[in-house]
């Protein structure tokens, strides 16, 4: 058992491909430079982050001012801050795109399971890094985002049958550093925000050292283009600071970072315990999908069920984001509609899968009518 696992790990480790660094032949396809872009934006984030640390003051009284100071007084401070912010956004976008690419192109299948799992975990960690970093500005949006996110785990104490284990409150108190969002929370968030990158940059370096792969599979032209674009973004539209966090006043409407918006809308519709469990289930599905999807097919239309699930996730992500931006949620009306739509689509996908499998099986039984002369080894038997 253990030996098997070790062998499995050994084999998958050989095929790790975290930043598309083995896809050199595919560089003319823009979908395959995403991996390198992940690495590039990550490096920009780290370098600009270290520069920001020189001036940032991680206290409730100093944080907001120090960021104002960085943006308006320090020469090129706006550039560093903008680069940090927009490169981080780019990092999340690239990882997300890459995950969708791997999903729809079936790249998570053998031998890519481990790569997929690591990337998926890095998306989750990237989002955690995003939300912890967001609090550091100490403005209204950040404050309330942090507070609501950290209240979610307290509902884990209400899981039926399990009873009150105190685990949920323990998680919350550990992150908050006490009973409220305050100084201890900033300190801890600062450490987490910074620590995630430190740990992972070391792991990534070990990986590159061991495998002797190229870090950046990009032409200098693309690199310069990306950097120039980020610089232009920070000049053109540096994020506005919002207002100083006020623990006595929740703003209306309240928004979070863009990649959390859909989740935010979902929370309006669900009982809070489910709102805590649903993301865990989503992460669980993401991590396990290579083992759930057992066929060898990689083309999306050849595996209807998983294709539909992926599309559904994408559509809901976009729809919920749009809904929350418009501040629309009629809590008595929407959830039944959403449930009904999901159920219908899932049943349809299931039927499609069954029909598809039956057709495949029939095809496999009847031998190919006339074997094509140039390729005697037919591929139809593969399934």
């Amino acid at each position, binding site marked *: 058992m253990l030996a098997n696992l070790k062998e499995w790990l050994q084999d998958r480790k050989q095929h790790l491909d975290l930043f598309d660094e083995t896809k050199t032949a595919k560089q003319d396809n823009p979908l395959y430079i995403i991996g390198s872009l992940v690495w590039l934006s990550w490096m920009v984030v780290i370098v600009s982050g270290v520069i920001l640390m020189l001036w940032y003051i991680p206290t409730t009284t100093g944080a907001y001012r120090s960021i104002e100071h960085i943006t308006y007084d320090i020469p090129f401070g706006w550039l560093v801050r903008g680069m940090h912010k927009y490169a981080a956004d780019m990092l999340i976008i690239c990882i997300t795109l890459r995950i969708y690419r791997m999903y729809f192109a079936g790249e998570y299948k053998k031998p890519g399971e481990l790569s997929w799992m690591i990337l998926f975990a890095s998306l989750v960690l990237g989002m955690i890094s995003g939300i912890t970093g967001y609090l550091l500005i100490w403005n209204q949006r950040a404050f*309330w985002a942090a*507070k*609501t996110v*950290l*209240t*979610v785990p*307290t509902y884990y*104490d209400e899981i039926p049958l399990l009873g*009150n*284990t*105190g685990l*949920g*409150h*323990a998680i*919350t*108190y*550990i992150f*908050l550093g*006490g*009973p*409220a*969002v305050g100084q201890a929370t900033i300190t801890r968030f600062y450490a987490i925000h910074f620590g995630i990158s430190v740990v992972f940059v070391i792991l990534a370096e070990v990986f590159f050292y061991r495998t002797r792969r190229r870090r950046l599979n990009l032409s200098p032209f693309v690199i310069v283009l990306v950097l120039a674009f980020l610089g232009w973004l920070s000049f053109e539209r540096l994020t506005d600071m919002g207002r100083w966090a006020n*623990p*006595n*006043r*929740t*703003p*209306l*409407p*309240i928004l979070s970072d863009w990649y959390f918006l859909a989740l*935010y809308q979902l*929370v*309006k*519709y*669900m*009982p*809070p*315990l489910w*709102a805590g469990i649903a993301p865990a289930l989503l992460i669980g599905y993401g991590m396990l999908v290579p083992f759930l999807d057992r066929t060898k097919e990689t083309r999306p239309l050849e595996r209807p069920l998983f294709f539909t699930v992926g599309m559904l996730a994408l559509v809901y992500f976009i729809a919920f984001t749009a809904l929350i931006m418009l*501040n*629309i*949620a*009629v*809590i*008595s009306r929407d959830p039944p509609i959403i449930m009904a739509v999901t159920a219908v689509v899932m049943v349809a996908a299931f039927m499609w899968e069954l029909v598809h499998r039956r057709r495949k099986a029939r095809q496999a039984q009847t031998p190919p009518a006339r074997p094509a002369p140039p390729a005697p080894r037919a591929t139809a038997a593969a399934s």
Partner: protein
Amino acid sequence: MTVGRRRLLKVLTAIPVLGGLVAVLSPLFRFLKPNDGPWQIFTIKPDLPKGGAQVVGKTTALAKPWDFFYFTYVQKFVQYDPTGYKAANIAGVAVRLPKKVKFENASGFVGYKGETDIALFQRICPHLGCIFNFIPDFHEITAGYGGYVPPEFEKHALMGCPCHLSIYDPAFPNDPGNVISGPAPRGARYFEFEIRGEDIVVTGAELGGIA
């Protein structure tokens, strides 16, 4: 002589090392441990919050029905740090209701012994902890809080949370502060209070909110 010299030396060195580790980790453990819930090991008394009695306002400020004011109650938690305490500010609202009610919510915490028409709610939303607002005009709820239209008997001042649009009715019959719309699993939390002369004195707060 079953225990070799090497072994003995190893054990002897291990003791101070382990001891040191415990010494380093124990305050950390104490620091990370939650203040409530059942994991109350290694403490003599449970870490319950203490706020003491605090005067938060005067009854004269609540002359007519639906008069209200906001206040802040400082709750102190026992904590492992040099001061020994950690304070959490709990935002609250005091409101005069149009008729007398009894305070008893689902979890059995009583805000006021007997009947009263003054209600003190914690403004920490029982959903995910935002601070909800007291909204004197219910039209504002319909306009800004997700389009909720209250039924006829609830067309009066309501409380609404900006985060996920939970709506509370401060004058809900038999259960003031009950949730009438939105994802909150329970009604607003109470303060425990007494009225001493003209002073409204908060003596305690229902546990559970993340301030």
